[in-house]
């Protein structure tokens, strides 16, 4: 009977721990609710809407919203490799005019964005099961080769 009483207390503690894990899950600690990251300068503003936490297998679309306050003659979104490494890129919409590598980063060119206009770019991603850990997913908005603004963010992939 003594052993039984001991086990009941252990079971209660374990149940409480499980409750904490589930509450953390409800609080989005393990993903995948999207998060908005924004940055703004007098020339343009950029809003990135994508999860900061995700789990393997999950599919989602990252949204990049560029608003030009001033004319951007040759807009480029320059993404860290963390946006593609360990992901399956299911699609890009709209299709960028150019796709290139800029010093190891992904550079998507969209051409001219007139002042006062917006460009919304979607990137459909699926997390590969081998993609576990924390990666940098910085986003830079350039006009040609000139950086306009940068958003610093990281994504954490849970096993």
């Amino acid at each position: 009977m003594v052993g039984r009483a001991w086990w009941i207390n252990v079971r209660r503690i374990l149940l409480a721990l499980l409750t904490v894990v589930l509450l953390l899950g409800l609080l989005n600690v393990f993903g995948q609710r999207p998060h908005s990251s924004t940055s703004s300068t007098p020339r343009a503003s950029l809003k990135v809407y994508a999860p900061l936490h995700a789990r393997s297998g999950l599919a989602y679309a990252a949204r990049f919203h560029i608003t030009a306050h001033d004319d951007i003659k040759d807009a480029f979104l320059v993404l860290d490799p963390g946006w593609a490494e360990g992901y399956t890129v299911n699609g890009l919409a709209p299709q960028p005019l150019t796709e290139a590598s800029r010093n190891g980063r992904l550079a998507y060119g969209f051409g001219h964005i007139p002042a006062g206009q917006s460009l919304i770019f979607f990137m459909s991603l699926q997390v590969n099961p081998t993609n576990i850990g924390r990666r940098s997913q910085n986003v830079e908005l350039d006009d040609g080769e000139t950086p306009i603004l940068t958003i610093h963010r990281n994504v954490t992939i849970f096993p």
Partner: protein
Amino acid sequence: MDIVIRAAVAYLFILFLMRVVGRRELSSMEPSDLILLVVIGDLVQNGVTQSDYSVTGIVLAAGTIGMLATLTAWLTYKWSRIRNVVEGEPVILVEDGRLIERNLKNERLTPDELMEQARLQQGVESLDDVKWAVLETSGAISIVKKE
């Protein structure tokens, strides 16, 4: 967070479904009952985990179901009204050798199925030998023989 909510909704829906289909299906396994239970398992898995292959997803989904099962057990233990809602009440099928046809009909049980249980459990030959036959909340039929 979505997976915890999806698992909770799935648990509540299956609990509701099991109450609606009746308790006969809980104990007996006719072909249609087997189809129901197998298909539910597969469909629920798709809805809860979706494309999630992660161990974290398993912990969250299974943990939610386990937690709700524990919570349900605790609530039904504490409050009899909740127990009646979640588990239902025992249904008397035979009283002093007399069939209660309305209850049999409500539970979709035939007198032959009832007699089969009476023979298997107590070896009774006739309904006259049965004092009580009760459909328990688990779906099992308990038979009490006359002295």
